[in-house]
């Protein structure tokens, strides 16, 4: 136990010396969170499917990070948001309801993938439209470029020409 005491002292000097509580407002909550978890895993709701938690967390943006999901982010804020997801799922909410809770709280911005309606349809259409336009342009060009034009019929069989080319290529 003495060793643990020393360690606590060291941590207090290193970390607490600059006051964890003062730096990060969420720190006290986290400390209690760890304490609660440490008193026994029985307190955590065992019914929550972690896969569902991950699926929800992957859709949401960690609010203090740049472009990381709540699932991926190593930040304390993201850990808290994961805890909230877990709590709400444990309380019987559907995954969509949990997502909706965060949207109501932070706005559409919290969703990493914009919802597919209204103005947002533009961004979803971009890849489809750009591929279709590209294919159309290529189709038109190919038609124009392959249009047969007057020229002497080629006496060499294309397969033969291909063979000659290959053999030329593979000469040392």
């Amino acid at each position: 136990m003495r060793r643990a005491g020393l360690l606590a002292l060291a941590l207090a000097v290193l970390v607490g010396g600059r006051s964890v509580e003062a730096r990060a407002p969420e720190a006290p909550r986290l400390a209690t969170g760890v304490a609660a978890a440490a008193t026994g895993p029985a307190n955590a709701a065992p019914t929550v499917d972690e896969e569902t938690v991950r699926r929800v967390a992957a859709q949401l943006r960690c609010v203090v990070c740049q472009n990381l999901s709540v699932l991926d982010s190593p930040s304390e804020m993201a850990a808290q948001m994961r805890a909230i997801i877990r709590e709400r799922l444990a309380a019987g909410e559907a995954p969509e309801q949990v997502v909706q809770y965060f949207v109501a709280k932070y706005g559409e911005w919290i969703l990493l993938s914009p919802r597919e309606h209204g103005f947002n349809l533009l961004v979803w259409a971009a890849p489809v439209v750009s591929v279709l336009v590209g294919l159309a342009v290529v189709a038109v060009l190919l038609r124009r470029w392959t249009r047969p034009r007057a020229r002497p019929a080629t006496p060499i069989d294309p397969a033969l020409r291909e063979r000659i080319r290959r053999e030329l290529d593979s000469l040392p």
Partner: protein
Amino acid sequence: MIPELGQGALVVGIVLAVYGAIAAAAGAQTGRPALIESAQRAALAVFALVTACFLLLAYAFLTFDFSVRYVAHQTTLSTPFYYRVTAVWGALEGSILLWAWMLALYTLIVVLRHRGERDLYPWALSVMLGIIAFFLLVMTLPAPPFERLTPVPADGRGLNPLLEDTGMITHPVALYLGFTGFTVPFAFAMAALVTGRVGDAWITTTRRWTIVAWYFLSLGLLIGGWWSYHVLGWGGYWAWDPVENAAFMPWLTGTALLHSAMIQERRRMLKLWNISLVILTFGLTIFGTFLTRSGVIASVHAFSQGSIGAFFLAFLGLVLLVAFGGLAWRWDRLTAQGELDSILSRESAFLLNNVFLVAAAFTVFFGTVFPLLSEAIRGVKVSVGAPFFNQVNVPLFLSLIFLMGVGPLIAWRRASIDNLKRNFLGPVAIGLVAAAVLHLVGVRSTLAVLTLALALFAAATIALDVLRGTRARLRTGAGLARAVTGLLLRHNRRYGGFVIHLGILLVALGVTGSQAWSVQTEATLKRGQAVEVAGYRFRFEGLSATQESTHARVVGTFAVSRGGGAPIVMRPSKKFYRQEQAPIAGVDYRMGLTEDLYLVLGDFARDGSAATVKVLVNRLVSWIWIGGLVLTLGALLAIVPDDRAA
């Protein structure tokens, strides 16, 4: 004194760069070699001056000259030597300086390689000096690296801790060599427009430059992924962050250019398209700088705000206006009637490749700027992040992998049924068998099956071609080793391209594996407790704390064992920096060919009795880095002098 010297060197540099640009243009116009030689001397002097600026700034860092604002903001007295060197380009001002220095370096090499040429080179030199002048101007007005700070602080503020990594040398340097490298083909393309010599000269002249730039850009992206993976502590390598996207877009258009340039070389077609692509690629490098430096989009890489965004936007506008204006001016010479023998040909495959690459570039571009658009038009903030980009880009990338298999073996001009059968029957069968086997061994992800089958199909076409070429050489009596090396060196461009394709396929393997099969969990453990993930047991052994030169560190110790094997010890940590609000994760990882173990320390009890840990078992990620090495070999092979050209 030192900062004033640097400032002076910058101003003289601008004057000389502008002079050189004008002299080179005038020399090209009037045909007076003396003017061009004078411009060359100016380019040499600009290189010397920018190098001097760089050394002066480095000197200010090494001597802790906190009277320089940039130095005071990027170091403290405790910053170790190595990071004081890399801090030179660790933020806005210095990164522009690094950029300008590389531009000057490329210009110097262009001068050394092409001096004496009269057609395109003088104009290209003029364009490059003009672009350098812009970057030097940025350093005198909105982003001055040598600006003084009064009163002089006793100690500096310190580097962003995420930049305290060895990747700080390789990642920015490779990325910037890639970005700035595309200036050379752009300059020659502009020269082609000005002179009206829009034929193939600029393409053949800059072919190798384009590969070099493309290679460094690829390397920069991969090292960025590696950095993200082992420093940022989220277990991933690519977040579709706006600035990652900004570097990825010119990579996509540059890749399109590498392919479509081959059609122009061989068939004298697509002149208009190739010049458009090179303008687009160069424009996207400037746009990327605009995104990173202006702060318009929140990103891990964003450095600062201020007037610099306006500078880059104005420059980008000017570049696009002039370049596309030139294109319109030379329209008649660029739109020669194309001629194709058949739709079933390599030309068609390359055109499709260009469609998908440019569509991907546009998708990434539109997704990246869409939040700005949404806020401006609807007044609603939205995010466009990884789930969106993954979903929309996957079909495009799968199409590209398919074309990667088709393109290299389908015949130019016209593919006969016989040609198709001979080249593709085997690889298609291999792809189908692979899909069936993957399904049978229990791979349930359709996406993973599809990607791996397509990748194997593409790899099989390459193998088939190498096999045939080698066999042909063996018949001439050469030994196996000589046959293979002879084949690779004789057709180094072709096989360099193949090796690069293999590298990309390996990257695709790593991406697919990590997306489909990685597992992760998070657990709060008391000392002595363990959590099991993917057959591994992670037991929490305790916490310790240390004080390092720039930060305090809390280290968790975990014994990791599998089955009855002896445990290994892993030590993820949290680093507490004075200048940072939140602690920074120090991940611990063990890499392997099939899986990586990756630990991130979360919250912990202050007495060390309990800690939360995030455990990731990431599958096949190492193949991304291996793919990068293979890609490097391929690029080297493609760049070595072509003995047929000699």
